[in-house]
């Protein structure tokens, strides 16, 4: 059964050892208990939501793939022209100037999230997992930004970054002068300024996820390590971290996907221009911009899809395996 399910999605089959349902006789024929009417109702219970999901998520995804090989301005379905790989060669060939900066910014975003934000989140989770007085209060403070929308986060950080009225420039005494630093406007620094705000939120998210994972670690493991003379740092890296492999994977995948989805923050700041170009912004600009280039936007979407497919498959196979184990 697992094998057929995997084939259906066109993904590599799970290792045969995992095929629990595949063993003959292991399949429990529940349908025999069901009446014809029950089967019909079950069909509807699954069918209606599946239709909604497939029609609005997967059909557009596939259509994106097809449209990426066409040239279309969005008016009249008969005006769609197949142009082969031209959109892709144009993109990679540098005809569209924001493309490479966007790729670069997406990679920097990913690098900062994976290399800085996520480790900080894990670090706080480890600190707060101990029985410290007030740990709840600290946890709340760190995770408060997670409930805020990224659009609001953009606004709140503008209060800190703006050249004339912002906190930093007022503290530096440069507010309103020629030396004022325009943190969101200066294209050589604004990506980093935005990443500080994005990190502020991501740290709390990772901390919450990791804390839940740490709670599931058997305390006797840590005690045993301590008795063997391991320090706290050693205990974490040698004992706790390896045990938490499943949650580590989840955290990495969520981090990758969050970095690829980044959009709201840069769009609310300056519509993703002038140093804040991201793939997601370029796709959007090709739909709502003056010249709607559907094929071109779709090719960008496909590049984003290809980058995100790796983590998605990774996450799925992991969670499905965990389910069968």
């Amino acid at each position, binding site marked *: *059964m*697992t094998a057929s399910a995997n084939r259906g*999605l066109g993904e590599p089959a799970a290792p045969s050892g995992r095929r629990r349902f595949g063993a003959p006789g292991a*399949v429990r024929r*529940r349908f025999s208990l069901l009446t014809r*009417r*029950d089967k019909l*109702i*079950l069909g509807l*219970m*699954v069918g*209606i*939501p599946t239709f*909604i*999901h497939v029609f*609005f*998520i997967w*059909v*557009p*995804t596939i*259509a994106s793939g097809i*449209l990426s090989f066409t040239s279309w301005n*969005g008016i009249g379905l008969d005006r769609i022209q197949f142009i082969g790989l031209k959109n892709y060669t144009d993109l990679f060939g540098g005809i569209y100037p924001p493309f490479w900066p966007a790729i670069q910014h997406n990679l920097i975003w990913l690098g900062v999230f994976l290399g800085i934000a996520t480790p900080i989140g894990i670090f706080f989770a480890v600190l*707060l997992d*101990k029985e*410290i007085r*007030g740990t709840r209060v*600290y946890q*709340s403070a*760190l995770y408060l*930004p997670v*409930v805020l*929308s990224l*659009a*609001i986060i953009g*606004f*709140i950080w*503008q*209060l800190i970054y703006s050249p004339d009225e912002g906190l930093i420039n*007022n503290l530096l005494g440069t507010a309103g002068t020629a030396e004022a630093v325009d943190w969101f406007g200066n294209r050589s620094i604004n990506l980093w300024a935005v990443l500080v705000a994005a990190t*502020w939120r991501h740290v709390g998210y990772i901390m*919450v*996820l990791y804390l*839940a994972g740490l709670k*599931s670690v058997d305390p006797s493991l840590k005690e045993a390590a*301590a008795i063997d003379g391991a320090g*706290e740092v050693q205990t974490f890296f040698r004992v706790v971290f390896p045990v938490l492999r499943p949650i580590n994977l989840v955290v990495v995948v969520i981090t990758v996907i969050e970095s*690829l*989805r980044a959009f*709201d923050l840069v769009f*609310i700041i300056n519509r993703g221009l002038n140093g804040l170009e991201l793939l*997601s912004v370029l796709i*959007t600009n090709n*739909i709502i911009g003056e010249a709607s280039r559907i094929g071109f936007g779709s090719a960008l*979407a496909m590049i984003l*899809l290809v980058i995100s497919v790796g*983590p*998605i498959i990774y996450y799925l196979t992991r969670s499905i*395996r965990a389910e069968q*184990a």
Partner: protein
Amino acid sequence: MTVEPHATALAAPLTARRRRTPPQRILLQGFLVATSLIWLSPILWAIYTSLRPYADTARLGYVSIGGTYNLDNFVNSWNGAELPKYFINTLIIVVPAVVLTLFLASMVAFAVSRYSWRFNLALLMLFTAGNLLPQQVVITPLYRIYLLVLGIPEPLSDNGRLYDQYLGIMIIHIAFQLGFCTFVLSNYMKTIPRELNEAAVVDGAGVFRTYREIILPLCRPPLAALATLQFTWIYNDFFWALILMRTGDKLPITSALNNLKGQFFIDNNLIAAGSILVALPTLIVFFVLQKQFIRGLTLGSTKG
């Protein structure tokens, strides 16, 4: 967990109280207090700025104390930017979207987790993968579909299309969030003993009655957690309405911020007050339903 043995050994008794506090702990407490304050500072700064009239900050500078403190900025942004209108738009979208998402997801989860048949694993993968896609991957064709679909009847759509309609925004939220909710709920339902189904069948209950009267009431904890999480996520969504709504007056509050910026929110004091007002519902969730929110987040990740 108690204090680590080696930490206790190092500890010098600082106070004569019942619990001795080792210096490491004091260091740690200090570090955590400082970090928490730094973490909260952007929000505290927003609150402080929002309480001061623009005239005062212009005269004294933003980093200053003194002048008057009042709620004028809140009143002005509430009225000037017509925030109530956008709050209502959000409500029109969020409430049905959350209810329908949970209803539909729980039905799929029920079928997938309580009955075995050929495709249930494939189905679960399809839903989960769909939820992980970046929104921009689907938006280009989706925008065209929303324009092309015709003939949606009057109360649901006033132009017959999905484009520029509350219904359209609701549907895309449902379609997207179904993935996550189905995944979480099916994991939860798997922990409910299968014998309950059999007992229901023996009692002559049909499939739908088994779902509604036996399984669903047992799923209250994950449903409450998911409802909290979904409310926050859909409330906070910026992207869908930005692209799929054209009429400015119909925008939900989070997407409306893009238009309000520079139009009504002209100085930092108003931006601060507006931000706090718009963040308020999610902050209430944070303070009142924190447990539910965290459980919703972690339910999807810690299983396995």
